[in-house]
């Protein structure tokens, strides 16, 4: 079969077969390409969608992107069940199998090092949201009558600004403390940019969006640790996602 090669991940050889009904990107079930004692997990994808120009166009198409991202993730998820994959960035595409082999040869030392570092580790995502709407409502409840004078108006405005600032300080202190605690427990941590509510649909302001690298064996304890933070401060919401393959820790340039 012709077509391009879409690479999801590089792993060490594993004995257990991948789940059979895995569709893969572009509907092509993932295949294993063994080379130099490593395995590239690959789908055959059509040029009309994955050559540079169509791919560029597709990435602006939220529907296409969603389907592709989910297909990619389902393969990584399946790999995570049977081994510790080293996930590649979305959209890593080669002309043919020999292109993939050359890539493995060029990077194999780095791959082995990173695979060792990530072996039996998973990534947990922790996000903190501040419910910014809450104080406004509280204010409205105790809202004084309309300001009768310019001075009253200014005073009320100052109060509003101050309570908003206090909320931010509180939120920031909470997020910082939580991040310190979790970083202390995890092997490694990364901060992602805060998510925008327009994309996430989440309520409140996302003030912490972090990833933590945790040994699989310690995950239960880590989750409990996050769970214990939940009642710490009213108006803060903590969300946990995972376990993920160690996407946020796969970059070789990220040395401790």
């Amino acid at each position: 079969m012709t077509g391009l090669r879409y690479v999801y991940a590089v792993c060490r050889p594993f004995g257990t077969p991948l789940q059979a009904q895995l569709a893969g990107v572009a509907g092509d079930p993932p295949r294993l390409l063994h080379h130099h004692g490593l395995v590239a997990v690959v789908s055959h994808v059509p040029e009309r969608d994955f050559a540079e120009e169509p791919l560029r166009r597709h990435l602006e198409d939220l529907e296409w992107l969603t389907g592709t991202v989910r297909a990619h993730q389902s393969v990584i998820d399946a790999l995570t069940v049977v081994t510790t994959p080293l996930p590649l960035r979305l959209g890593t595409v080669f002309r043919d199998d020999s292109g993939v082999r050359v890539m493995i040869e060029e990077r194999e030392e780095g791959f082995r090092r990173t695979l060792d570092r990530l072996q039996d580790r998973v990534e947990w995502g922790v996000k903190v949201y501040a419910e910014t709407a809450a104080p406004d409502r509280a204010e409205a409840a105790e809202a004084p009558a309309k300001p009768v004078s310019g001075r009253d108006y200014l005073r009320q405005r100052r109060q509003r600004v101050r309570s908003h600032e206090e909320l931010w300080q509180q939120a920031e202190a909470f997020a910082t403390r939580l991040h310190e605690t979790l970083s202390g427990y995890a092997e490694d941590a990364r901060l992602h940019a805060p998510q925008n509510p327009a994309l996430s649909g989440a309520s409140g302001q996302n003030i912490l969006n972090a990833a933590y690298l945790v040994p699989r064996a310690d995950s239960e304890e880590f989750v409990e640790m996050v769970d214990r933070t939940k009642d710490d401060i009213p108006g803060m919401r903590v969300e946990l996602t995972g376990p993920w393959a160690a996407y946020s820790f796969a970059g070789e340039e990220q040395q401790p």
Partner: protein
Amino acid sequence: MTVIERREVALVDLLDRLLAGGVVITGDITLRIADVDLVRIDLNALISSVNAQVPSPFDPLVPSRKELP
């Protein structure tokens, strides 16, 4: 707060990882657009064109995020 509620993985969480994480390898297809910022700007354009009332996703969200460790 529900910490461990399992539900479908949110697209944004996936994008954080698949577009900003993972090993970056220049394949045969030179994918300069794999640059996260570009992709996000494109998404931004898309979303704003769909709904003008949606605020720009890429305004700085937290004035003092830099101060986080």
